[in-house]
């Protein structure tokens, strides 16, 4: 089953901005409780949307430049990219149904 892939700064542009299909990026950090709660939901979605949406995780601790490029000041933040552009920005824990709605819109 497809799983979200942890992505370093150096590979972000190639993997996310040049992707042919929509991409969901989960900005997280190990110290953040709600981030650890979002993770299993994102894992499930990665399985359900395999082939339709790519899933990546950005550890904001290790990659502060990407977080600041997209104005992330609160985690967890999930951003959906389409053709290199952010099309949805969701701050904080969201129920799975709400995330699915945003993904459906992006597909």
């Amino acid at each position, binding site marked *: 089953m497809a799983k979200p892939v942890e992505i370093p700064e150096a590979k972000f542009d190639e993997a996310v901005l040049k992707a042919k299909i929509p991409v969901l990026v989960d900005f997280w950090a190990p110290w953040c409780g709600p981030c*650890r*709660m979002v993770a299993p939901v994102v894992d499930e979605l990665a399985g359900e949307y395999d082939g339709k949406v790519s899933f990546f995780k950005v550890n904001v601790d290790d990659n502060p430049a990407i977080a600041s490029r997209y104005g992330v*000041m*609160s985690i967890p933040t999930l951003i959906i990219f389409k053709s290199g552009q952010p099309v949805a920005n969701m701050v*904080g824990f969201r129920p799975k*149904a709400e995330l699915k709605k945003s993904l459906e819109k992006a597909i």
Partner: protein
Amino acid sequence: MNNPQKKYDIVIIGGGPAGLTAGIYAARSRQSTLLIEKGAIGGQIINAAMVENYPGYTDGISGIDLTGAMHKQATKFGMETLYAEVTGITISGDLKIVRTSGGDFAAAAVILAGGSERQKLGVSGEAAFTGRGVSYCATCDGAFFRDKEVAVVGGGNAAITEAIELTRFASRVTVIHRRNELRATKIVQEKAFADPKIKFLLETVVEEILGNNSVDRIKIRDLKSGQVSLLKLSGVFVNVGSQPATGYLKDLVKLDNNGAIIVDERLETSVPGIFAAGDIRSGSIRQVISAAGDGAMAAVNAGKYISG
């Protein structure tokens, strides 16, 4: 998906310390038990980096580790977990029908443990800047404010603990509180007063949050003089208390003036067989340990109710 006719001895609504402890007690006493959670297991305490007053943990434990262990423990005894939102409860003879976004379930007894919802400040700019300088979780977001000035709004335990935590990152933390004294426990207050990075603006309220792409200042009012001024900062951490999450229950069980569920000494609500535990009930002291205690008591009394 879920069989709508599925019946349990006990259905627990809410996956915080109250619901999880009820789950441990109910499942361990061999009642078939379903816990329904609409968001994430753990409740509000998952935002706490360190719980220092839960008995048995001399060095403290994080909220997420503590509640994660409770969930594992309840699951070990056979409790099932459903992630869904409860939309209503109806009474059908001896059974309670719990309607959820994931199907309907019948229960001999129900334990309401949905806790409370964080209150917003309700000022202009708050919603627009959420995630852009307005935060409801210092543990999550503190690191984004390294060497920056921030404010914490509120005077309770959670607010003052957040302020202390934020001094690890922020260059200055201003606590803004509408009353002339803090509500936080003395030991927490002493720690905050001793910290040179923390400044206090008491009898002061936030009127507006301002900025361009992100927060750069707030408008505050001194309640004594009525004077309005601007405070330059990059972050506003809101911690002004919470409201019992009883919106969907107001036509079912009796609530007090604050919207909390009225219970008797056995934690039974105005409806026989429906119990309430933790922050959601009237008179709760809103601590993990008291929520856990409530959960145990509600589960034991629900068991007695079922066996008659």
